[in-house]
């Protein structure tokens, strides 16, 4: 079920030092032949993933210019958008924040920035075993009592 988000921004951004990772050219994580878990995925998928990692670890930092506004928001699925919006709604415990979604996206960029740094070190640590490690971690999160 899709709806208009009149106040959402056109793009979300990352910093220049993450450009190489976000690129789908050879050497980037998204390239279809890359060994990475993100092979064949899109920038928006990596962005949402990194943002979720950042939020889960409660780490965020403002983006230093020059920003690379390459993540197309209209390409995100409704589920991805609501995962992103839920960060601010849960933090403010109110729906009023939806009046200006662009502010929520700015915060999401900050979480995604730190999340990607965490991701880089985790992928470096686990290498090809990262998907397995991720799977275990996700199962542990689900097993936690909320």
């Amino acid at each position, binding site marked *: *079920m899709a709806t208009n988000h009149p106040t959402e921004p056109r793009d979300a951004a990352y910093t220049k030092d993450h450009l190489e990772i976000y690129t789908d050219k050879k050497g980037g994580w998204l390239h279809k032949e890359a060994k990475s878990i993100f092979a064949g995925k899109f920038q928006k*998928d990596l962005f949402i*993933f990194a943002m979720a990692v950042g939020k889960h670890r409660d780490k965020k930092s403002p983006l230093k210019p020059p920003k690379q506004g390459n993540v197309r928001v209209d390409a995100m699925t409704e589920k991805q958008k609501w995962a992103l919006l839920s960060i601010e709604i849960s933090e403010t415990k109110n729906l009023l924040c939806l009046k200006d979604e662009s502010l929520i996206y700015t915060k999401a960029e900050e979480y995604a920035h730190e999340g990607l740094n965490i991701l880089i070190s985790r992928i470096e640590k686990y290498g090809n075993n990262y998907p397995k490690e991720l799977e275990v971690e996700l199962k542990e999160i689900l097993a936690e009592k909320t």
Partner: protein
Amino acid sequence: MKYAISSISITNYRQYSGTQVLDFKIDKTKNLSLILGKNGAGKSNLLNAITWCLYGIEIHKSKDNYNSGGMPIINTSALKKLKINQSITAEVIIHLKTDIGPWTIKRTLEGGKSGLGELYFNETSELTVIHPVYGQDKINTGEETQILINNLLPEALKNFFFIDGEQLREFFKVSTPDNISKAIDIVSQLELVYKAADHLSKVETNLRKSVKNTTPQLKSVQDNIEKIQNKVVDLKSTIKQVEKQKEKDQEEIIRVKEFLKTHNSSVISTLESERQSLEIDINKLNDQVWRKEYQRNSYLVEIAPFIYLKKEIEQTYKIMEEKVEKGELPPRIKETFIKELLEKGRCICGNELVGEAKKILEDYSKKVILSELSEISIVGKTTIEEIFSSIKEFPEKIDGLNEEIEEFKGQLEKKELRIEHISNEIKEYNVAEIRRYEERRDELNRLIAKNEQVLLLYKSDLNTYDIKLKELRGEEERELSKDKKNNTLKEKLTLVQSSLKVLVNTEKIIKTKIRKQVEKSLNENFKTLIRKKTAFSSISIDDKYDVKVHHIDGYNVINDLSAGEYLILGLSFMSALMTISGFQAPVIIDTPLGKIDDEHREYITTELPKFLTGTQLMLLVTPTEYDKNVKANLDRYLLKENFYRITENKDQTESTVGRYDGN
């Protein structure tokens, strides 16, 4: 320029003593010429005579073979008859009919008997070309003459027009992606791009050397650039060597496999056949494992954010529910829908809307004044419910995917184990030659794997050098900017470097475009020439030049084709290359139908001349190939003046060629 061969004259060349003349009538519809000859009678040497005359190279002899002695080009009987201090010349003359008039190409090689009675041969042959220029015949000799012939058809392309039937059948059987890539590279005619890149690299080095106001920092940066550039050149040359070796090993391993598969011992041939089919299965399984792992990874990437944010998403949902409870967020029912129900006076369950029910609905319709915000939130609530069900199914779904992966891996392990057993059985077989072949196979596998690793390493080094060069060029630019006198030089360097980048991209674009054109044309040709038109869905050449023949059921059957199908695939590929090259030369095929089953022979001889309408087609065939059916099919395209037969003398050492009436 389009050309056809109107006549060939051969004198004292290989087994052809004296002068043999073959005249061909050129006809657009009856485009076929036939030369019939037993095995060893001199068919291949007729093809050799043509390529020797045009390029100084015999197509059937590799360069190594050429330089390692063997039979001389000059006819041996004629050589025997020579007296002391007498000389003799082997000569091939080809007359061509071209769009701009007749051409004559003559190549000669002189040899003789010295005063001491020893035979000698001139090291190089002499080439003469007579061609029309402004209505006059111009005679060309000397080094530049070869260029004229290369303008008609470049030497690199000759193998696509002057074809050895056996090599053509084997082309896709033994070809590696490197061979395919090379063949496509040849027709891409990128020499101009390569030459331009080479020239620009030299200009870049010279510009760097010409800097006048150098500082110690600038000098150090420029020295480093030069050092790395030299390393890149060396590394690229090493990579080429390793790739060549890998290619040679791959070709040898194919020959080893063929030897074992066709061995007289049924035990060995059965084991090898089983191993080859296991290898195909293993490739398929590896592909399946890769696909499943890709699917699992893709799923993990999609689901993980929702699980990481589960707490936040749950809280959001709770907030929304509270709003709904308080009536701040009405359920997602459109105002128009409620109005419609009231107008109809009937509920969706079929009951009439009267009394209390009608009153509740009327009150509710007043409440349904959806603000923009609540509209968004309602969608959000539904979306979050979808997220919850995705999270709920995660453990089961991920376990299911893992089980499938493990299942494939288990099958893979079993097949790999069976291959190991087969190898051990062959190694213990009581024929030394077989054991030797198996050991060699092992060794080749190890060498190929090692070279693949080495190549990976070298390519990663190249990548590192590229990054380093990029950094250094940036530093160089900054250093040059410090002195205004260097501005022009800096601009020139930037221009050269950008031009080099453009050339690299151009090369990539051209290669991709040509590959796709070849793929398209290959598919069209194959569909025309193949008998089983519905069995194959398509042929693909991927960006790694891996050729796949897709069976209608989805399997890649490149390793399971019959000899006839391989020939057709080869012909279709060569023909695609011919078309794309843009050159219009005769097509000459030596032994086109050997080892081909009757059905394919019938089909090829019906379709091929038709397929090449307008192109001169010359077939060199054995009497076995030229059976009754083939004769009947080819007769439709054959002018009787264009039918020749090679006859051997009693000792089978000399041959002559003469017109043949077919009886």
